[in-house]
């Protein structure tokens, strides 16, 4: 008698069931994310209370009560303060930012010549964006244009004095223009120099190693403020009378050297993390020193220290504000300078101006930070945890 086969084999997939009711919807999301444990619940409640206390007045001040346009301080001050707003009013004075916006971007760059700054900015974006997007081809040509051709073109466009462009002296520059010029030059100069210095410090040749160490340790041992201050106050006394360095040039050199020293140490950290086997492997393949560094060591080392490098760049971007002490006005400097314009002096003006400057800085720094995360993920080929 044949044994009937009692085993059951399902011939088709079971239909997908919805998750249980308790795991669905807003209630479940709140429970798992905000109120999972009593401590979580207490912290969440505190955070919600804080937001409820903080957000409505902030939004009120920033947007609802804010003044968007106006000719002078009267629109941003109450009747008691000599303005037109009712007593007890408080709101952001965006009219101040509105009236000074051009100045915040260009400084005192002559009106008729501002198209030159605009054109430079367009070129900058047009070359930078394809460089940042991995899919776009011709990276080598693009990088060459961006790091070699663009600075030359930008120099002639912004400074002028040739090709029928009138000369615009750097004391007239200001605002975001100065911030970006300082950061771009700082970054573009410091990265290659920093790599060379980091290699120099690990070199087997004593002279090169010693020089690199002296440079790095000297520059790192002095605050940027001191470097800038020396360049602006002491340097003119040593130069023969009548000879003056361009202030922006002094600041550029100071900032670039400073950043170089810091980057060199960040990159050296990356070099030290590469196992000895990589060096030996490269040697055994018969690669020369530069081939070894370019093809084997640096690609790995730089990838490791992307967060450190971007960290340095972000702090450089913000450090540009220090040129305020040598009488140059970056974005923050020119915003603060305009606080003393009596036409706009009101209790709301400084807060509004600083929030505006902070927001602009945040946009730039946050973009840099997001892009670095994107690059880390893209290049992360062996160290994923």
């Amino acid at each position, binding site marked *: 008698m044949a044994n009937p086969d009692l085993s059951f084999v399902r011939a088709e997939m079971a239909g997908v069931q919805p998750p249980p009711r308790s795991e669905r919807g807003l209630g479940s999301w709140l429970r798992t994310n905000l109120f999972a444990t009593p401590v979580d619940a207490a912290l969440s409640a505190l955070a919600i209370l804080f937001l409820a206390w903080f957000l409505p007045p902030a939004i009120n001040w920033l947007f609802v009560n804010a003044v968007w346009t106006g000719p*002078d*301080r009267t629109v941003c001050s*109450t009747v*008691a*303060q*000599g303005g037109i707003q009712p007593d007890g009013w408080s709101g952001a004075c965006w009219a101040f930012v509105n*009236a*000074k916006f*051009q*100045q915040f971007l*260009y*400084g*005192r760059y002559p*009106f008729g010549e501002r198209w030159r700054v605009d054109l430079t900015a367009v070129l900058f974006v047009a070359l930078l964006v394809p460089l940042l997007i991995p899919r776009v081809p011709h990276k080598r040509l693009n990088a060459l244009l961006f790091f070699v051709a663009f600075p030359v073109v930008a120099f002639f466009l912004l400074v002028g004095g040739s090709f029928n462009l009138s000369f615009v*002296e750097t*004391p007239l520059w200001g605002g975001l223009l100065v911030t970006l010029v300082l950061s771009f030059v700082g970054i573009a100069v410091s990265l290659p120099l920093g790599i060379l210095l980091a290699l120099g410090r690990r070199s087997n040749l004593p002279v090169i190693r010693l020089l690199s160490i002296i440079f790095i340790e000297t520059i790192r041992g002095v605050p940027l403020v001191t470097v800038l*201050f020396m360049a*602006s*106050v002491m340097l*003119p*006394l040593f*130069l*023969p*009378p*009548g*000879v*003056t*360095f*361009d202030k922006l*040039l002094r600041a550029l050199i100071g900032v670039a050297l400073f950043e170089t020293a810091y980057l060199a140490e960040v990159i050296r950290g990356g070099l030290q993390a590469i196992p000895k086997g990589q060096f030996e492997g490269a040697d055994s393949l018969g690669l020369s020193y530069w081939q070894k560094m370019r093809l084997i060591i640096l690609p790995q080392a730089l990838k490791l220290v992307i967060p450190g490098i971007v960290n340095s760049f972000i702090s450089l971007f913000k450090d540009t504000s220090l040129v305020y*002490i*040598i*009488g140059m*006005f970056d974005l923050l400097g*020119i915003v*603060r*300078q*305009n*606080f*003393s*314009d*009596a*036409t706009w*002096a*009101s*209790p709301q*003006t*400084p807060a509004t101006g600083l929030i505006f400057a902070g927001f602009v800085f945040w946009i730039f720094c946050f973009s840099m930070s997001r892009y670095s995360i994107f690059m880390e993920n893209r290049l992360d080929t062996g160290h994923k945890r």
Partner: protein
Amino acid sequence: MKKTVLQGVLGAAALAYAATAASAGTLDDVKAKGFLQCGVNTSLAGFSAPNDKGEWSGFDVDYCRAVAAAIFGDATKVKFTPLNAKERFTALQSGEIDVLIRNTTWTISRDTSLGLDFTGVNYYDGQGFMINAKKLSGINSALQLSGASVCVQSGTTTELNLADYFRANKMEYNPVVFEKVEEVNAAYDAGRCDAYTTDQSGLYATRLTLSNPDDHVVLPEIISKEPLGPAVRQGDSQWADVVRWTHYALLNAEEFGITQANVDEMKNSDNPEIKRLLGTEADTKVGTDLGLTNDWVVNIVKGVGNYGELFERNIGSASPLKIARGLNAQWTKGGLQYGMPVR
């Protein structure tokens, strides 16, 4: 001083450009280069601040324009170098600027040991106190401020004057010190201190940024003398004369009622003093002796107006600051501004 070969080489090699060769005559250098390089404050309400168009405006700034107008007949032929308190004297000594008009107090040590010459006092200032009259009702003199907390900016002579004043009057006080002007203002506005001290011109600017300006009064005591004036490098009398007499020309123009609007009519005046001032007298040599043209005062007044107009427009009743003339009124009206005679 002649420019040496070494200087030339250094200048070229260092990508530098020569702002001014500080040779014998600053006036000749300024004329040769075609503009005046004037050192001003990086920002001080009413004295030197950017306007909406980004142009410099203010009392000190207009003084620079007046000097340029005297030399070139064109008040726009001036370039401004914004300077902070620390670098202002270096900039003048090194020849980076031709004249420093940056609310600089005239003191003996600056006049002697720093190698400067002050050419006059364009604004008589002095350190004062401001208090919240609502909170501290009954106080109407700085001598009643014993035990008060005082908001003050750090690293200024203001801080030292404050200490001197309270020690001299055997009073106690708590300094509340901040580095940035905005911080001092905010702290005072929030009531963190009883009194606020800085130069009186600054007190009026600060009042504009307070939530209830009418509650605050400026006490009558002036605890320091702050005569602010233009300074030039020592040892160039001709140049010092040009800056000095620009100041006196502005004062004389006000005294004789010559304004930006009526200066052309005034050229036909029969008053011999006005004729001498405006250079319309026959065979006058007043302007040419100064190294300028004889219509130098006409150029100044046409360019920027007279002293009174400058004052009212930038810091006086026509400006948000509304500072009274006080010590800066003409000598005929009880002030200290006294234009030396042009003859």
